[in-house]
């Protein structure tokens, strides 16, 4: 009975948070919304379920983004820096001029984040006893969290060698954690992931791994896509293909050239009986 109550409260709270996020977004939209009462077009950027962007015109005939009518993916950036903030301190990128390394805050997409450090893990729960904070680092099942984030029930990342508190801060639940136990912002997941994936961090820092948009010069102004915009941190090697990126719907195939009724021949071996 108590459990249900907890769930209900959490659900209600997250729903409220979600609503407020949407409301804030609507408010942020300028007169354009008033002019065209159409449903705003929102497209996802890298993987589905991570960063999103709402299409709007930033000057006549020039949208901030063009979305795919087929898949809803972002297909073209009119403004690569929309909604970005400075990345913050990142070792190895000190040489970049001030304000040239930007990221899109992840916090906005994480619906329950505002509550994490305030509503539940502040030690003064409203309707129920505050969850006890684990003393050590040994894994223990946490039904509330499992209910909120289904991914963690059977955490794939690390294959059982790591658990929640290897990445999440024990007491400050709206933060991630570094090797010293100090908090890391959710907007800078690279500092966390780099703890283990040093080679990837190095490649990412040099622009080889991951994605950056904006100006291509090595000291240019760029939006850096952070780790979690492309990878699901709880299940990086998405099951189907055992690769770091989740499957998604492809954009339409090219037009068949004149003279071809279909592309079935592509599936046939070039030489018969082989």
């Amino acid at each position, binding site marked *: 009975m108590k459990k249900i109550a907890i769930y209900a409260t959490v659900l209600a709270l997250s729903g409220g948070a979600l609503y407020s996020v949407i409301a804030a977004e609507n408010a942020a939209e300028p007169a354009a919304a008033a002019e065209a009462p159409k449903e705003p077009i929102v497209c996802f950027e890298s993987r589905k379920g991570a960063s999103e962007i709402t299409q709007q015109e930033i000057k006549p005939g020039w949208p901030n983004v063009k979305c795919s009518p087929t898949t809803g993916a972002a297909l073209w950036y009119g403004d690569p820096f929309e909604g970005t903030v400075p990345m913050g301190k990142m070792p190895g990128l000190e040489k970049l001029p001030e304000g040239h390394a930007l990221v899109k805050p992840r916090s906005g997409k994480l619906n329950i984040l505002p509550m994490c450090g305030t509503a539940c893990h502040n030690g003064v729960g409203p309707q129920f006893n505050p969850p006890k904070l684990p003393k050590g680092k040994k894994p223990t099942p946490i039904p509330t969290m499992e209910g909120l984030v289904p991914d963690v029930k059977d955490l794939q990342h690390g294959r059982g060698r790591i658990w929640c508190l290897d990445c999440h801060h024990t007491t400050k639940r709206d933060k991630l954690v570094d090797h010293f136990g100090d908090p890391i912002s959710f907007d800078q997941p690279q500092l966390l992931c780099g703890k283990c994936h040093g080679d990837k961090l190095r490649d990412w820092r040099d622009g080889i791994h991951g994605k950056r948009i904006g100006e291509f010069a090595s000291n240019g102004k760029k939006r850096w896509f952070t780790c979690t915009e492309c990878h699901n941190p709880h299940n990086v090697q998405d099951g189907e293909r055992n690769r770091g990126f989740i499957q998604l719907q492809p954009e339409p195939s090219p037009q068949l050239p004149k003279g071809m009724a279909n592309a079935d021949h592509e599936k046939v071996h*070039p030489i018969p009986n082989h």
Partner: protein
Amino acid sequence: MHQLTSFATDYTRYVLKGGTKFYAWMGSLAVLIVGMLYVFYLQNTDGLIVTGMTSQIHDGLYFANLVFLVGVAAGAVTIVFPAYVYHHEGMHKVTVLGEMLAITAVIMVMMFVFAHMGRPDRLWHMIPIIGIYNFPHSMLAWDVLVLNGYLILNAICGFYYLWIKYTGGKINNKWFMPLVFLSIVWAFSIHTVTAFLISTMPSRPMWFHSMMPIRFIVTAFAAGPALIILAFMIIRKNTKFWIDDSVINLLSTIVTYCLGIAIFLTMSEVVVELYARTEHANGLYYLMFGLHGLTKLVPWFWASVVLMVGSFLLLIFPKFRHDYKMLPILCATTFAGIWIEKGMGLIVPGFIPSPIGEVTEYYPSFVEVLLTLGIWAFGFFILTILLKGAIGILLGDIKYRGAKAVATR
């Protein structure tokens, strides 16, 4: 000057006169030419979308005919060469007809160039000084140079000869003979350069081999004289102008040998490509057996094999070669066989698969077929005029007042 105007008027008057058969022939050609003009208009307002060509297979019927007709133009040298190098009496008499054929073929080639271009209105960009001529880097620039040169050489040699016959003067061998020999060498160059046009592209492995020029030349020296024999047979039948049997026999011998070599070269290519059967053989494999179950060109290839090999097997026997009922048929089958093999059979599979492995097929659209027929009709139209005028002068039907008839010697 007076001589020149009277040459022009006499020539025109003679050419325009003719029987019902002549007018019917010219009339039906004219119908096709009008059709050609219409589809040319379509193609240049709507664009090449009205043809069967795509970004994958962007050279089709036009380019195939272009390549083939360069061969026909070069084939005229099979008359000029024996006439001036071996002093073949019969050939010498008809040299000018060969030159007229060459002129016609080159004009047809140029028309096919126009048909092939995406922007024929911009062809002036190739003219040196007002445009840019990418010489010597671009093979196409070489091709334009040699083709125009060949046209000019043949026009000068042919019409100078006719002019002398008309006025009854004497040929100035001091500059005429060097020009004739230049035109002989030049004939080889036009076809060599046309072969280089496509054989210098490593992106298209089917064409990328050094055998291409010699294959072009031998097929040209089979198809060209085959057409000439047909024309001569028609002339013998329909005009007073008599062409020696020795001419036709020599030409049919040339056709036979060159056809034999052409078949040998094709066979060599098949063995080399299919023995190792690398990916570079995919084009040829598509042509012979099809690829990915796509087999549109396969029947054409085997038809050309049957036509060429069949014609050759019969032609090697003097019995058939000298049988003037049989010979035109064999010439027609040779011509058709080579037209397929060297035209569509060479150009289209060069694009299949595309350099990045995409397999698509091509078939010419109605517009392409009509435009091609129209250009051939136009070719026959001017060939008829040129041959008729030349024969008239050679026969002495057209001559400057008071000049002696010298044509028939």
